[in-house]
């Protein structure tokens, strides 16, 4: 269902989408039943001359069961929702799949920056690649991210990955994702972080291994990277101007 509104581009996007669909189906059913009951009763028992009110306390067994039985069914539905919800949560936030790559994500007012290992594949060496606003990842690779904030609370969100995690200053928060579809996707900041909150856009570029290798070479060669640094888009520049004003 969510897929209709926004592509899913990571492995757990589907499980969240399925959960969403399950909840939508169950609560949608109950919502419709209840709304129909409400409007039907409102219509059926509208005021009519000569028809007196029935005196019902709500404690009569044969009437009360019209409430208790649906109510018990609702509890069953709650459990049916809860179990997959917890499983999805467990899989995304509490398990630890084998990690193939690590990337550091820094949030600050008002940009995302990233630190990835260079060609040697090890973080915190001289050839680390640091990018601002753009994260290049390889498709079908499990990434571990280490999220930090340099000033206020930010929230690292990649809607297409169905990924969201707040970044708290003073802590390193980690998590994982595994992109499974090539393309360019938005990175948002979903926690208000000051007047430039709407500027905190980034892009995650999911590439094939070949493309990623090519990028790696370009990025680790500063002369090439300088030339290719993306120009700020026209709209972006105008917003920046507005913020400054």
């Amino acid at each position: 269902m969510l897929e209709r509104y926004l592509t899913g581009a990571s492995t757990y996007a589907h499980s969240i989408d399925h959960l969403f669909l399950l909840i939508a189906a169950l609560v949608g059913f109950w919502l419709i039943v209840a709304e129909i009951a409400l409007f039907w009763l409102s219509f059926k028992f509208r005021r009519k001359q000569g028809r007196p009110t029935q005196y019902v306390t709500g404690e009569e067994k044969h009437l009360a069961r019209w409430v208790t039985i649906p109510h018990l069914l609702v509890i069953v539905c709650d459990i049916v929702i809860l179990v997959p919800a917890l499983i999805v949560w467990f899989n995304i936030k509490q398990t630890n799949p084998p990690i193939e790559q690590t990337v550091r994500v820094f949030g600050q007012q008002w940009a995302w920056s990233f630190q990835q290992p260079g060609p040697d594949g090890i973080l915190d060496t001289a050839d680390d690649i640091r990018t601002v606003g753009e994260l290049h990842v390889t498709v079908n690779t499990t990434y571990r991210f280490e999220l930090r904030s340099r000033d206020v609370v930010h929230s690292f969100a990649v809607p297409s990955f169905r990924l969201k995690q707040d970044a708290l200053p003073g802590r390193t928060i980690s998590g994982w994702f595994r992109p499974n579809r090539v393309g360019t996707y938005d990175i948002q900041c979903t926690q208000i972080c000051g007047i430039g909150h709407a500027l905190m856009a980034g892009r995650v570029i999911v590439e094939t291994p070949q493309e990623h290798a090519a990028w790696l070479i370009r990025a680790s060669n500063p002369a090439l990277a300088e030339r290719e640094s993306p120009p700020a888009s026209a709209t972006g520049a105008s917003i920046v101007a507005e913020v400054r004003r």
Partner: protein
Amino acid sequence: MSTQVPHAEQGIFQKYFWSTDHKIIAMQYLFTGMAMGLIGGYLAYVFRMQLAFPGHSVPGFGIVTPGEYNTVVTMHGSIMIFWVAMPVLIAAFGNFLIPLMIGCDDMAFPRINRLSYQIFLLSAVVLVASFLVKGGAFGGAWTSYPPLSASGAYNLTPLGASLWLVAVALEFVAFLLGGVNFIVTAMNSRAPGMTMYDIPMVVWMIVLASIMFMASVGPLIAGAVMLLFDQTLKTGFYDPARGGDPLLWQHLFWFFGHPEVYVVLLPAIGIVAELLTVFARKKLFGYKTILYTTWATVIISFLVWAHHQFVAGIDPRMANIFSVTTLLVSVPITEMVFLYIATLYGGSIRFHTPMLWAVAFVAEFMIGGVTGIFLGASGTDIYLHDTYFVIAHFHYTFVPIAIFSVFGGLTYWYPKMFGRMLNDTLGKVHFWGTAIPFNLIFIPLFITGAAGDQRRTYNYALFAEQSRPVLQHLRMFATFGLLVMLLFQLVFLFNFFWSLRHGRRAEANPWMANTLEWTVPSPPPHGNFAKLPTVYRGPYEYGVPGRIDDYWPQDVPN
């Protein structure tokens, strides 16, 4: 303030501004809340226009800068919850109804009651004044997460942030005093014969809401003091560099913030119970069950607050517990809603304006309730957290609570408050003009939220996925709905003030209701009851077989 009026006996000032009469204080809360509601509505207009037509000058405001946008969003949230829903639902209805419905002459502590309103008024003045200070009003969201809120260097509204906190703290002190008053009055001043199960549901609900408020507000006041110290004395309670913890505020805030949702929900549900029974001429279906479910809601609501923090960096194991408790809340609330629907069964429903509001409340609130499941289930919350889905969800609960039930209550008790009837036709025009556009605003926002629109974002131009034309059209559609809805509020304002003078005079009991407030003249005189009433039965004895009248007031012996 001082009493400078020469005729100390019954001067205008004495009567309307320095009164200890619960009815006058209720009116003071009501009108202050309505005035703040107008400000809150105007702010909503400003940011919805900005979202629909980003960068264009908003008529009546001008160009919205990002800083102003944050301020406007923050103030809309704060005002609508703390300065509209709370004063009108709890303070105005509580003050007006509790003494009248339980049959006593005034609140237990009338002077504390007056003090409570004065502190509240001061808090409103401080809040409005914060628009005028250097840097403008606070712009760090109504949740005010530090370090953004703790440092002027981050939020760029240093004075506004402190004034916001002071205003919020004052407001809580006011409701603390009011809450003590409500609880004590309802426990100690009931008319002879009124047992626990004879108390009208709305009184029960306001009292339970007050109990919840009392039990949850302490942590937030503690957190607010710490935040204020961080802002002004440069302490480091929330500063990780100095051993503080930014997450701490989130815990303290939501510890109060979630019960707060139910604090405003319960009075609304109580008002709706009164309306449904009177206009369906029916006994409330399962009075005791509703009471027990309310108690269950109160208890569970203290155990769910961390569901606002699923992705905030808390222990993920904790998220599981809070996911379970959150879905547990749905159990009593569903039961309650089912019982309300069942109340209509076998009735003889009169669709006057108040009843339309009551039925609409149930219909719309259900949508708000079920969409909460998406957010309470931790798995889907990862995606939906802080998107417009959340906004649409809680507006589908808060608008029925703070708008529908308030309009229902106002149109129902207006004759008792002011001694005149409202115009029913204008009331219905206003109802349809509010209820339909309300859905036009928020159904599109469910969709933009499901498509990933993040909250509090001034302009989506930099986000390729969010600046798709289809989403922009939905945003414009929502704004259109808001404009229509705001326009129709003029009908209500006209009806309200016109009827004050020119409405049909109301007799004591125009709706043929059972509860005690309808046994006194409209409006009730000072001291309420000429002779204090005695209660013989519950409040919802409508259509009792064997009686000529289809209602049976609580104070009539047989």
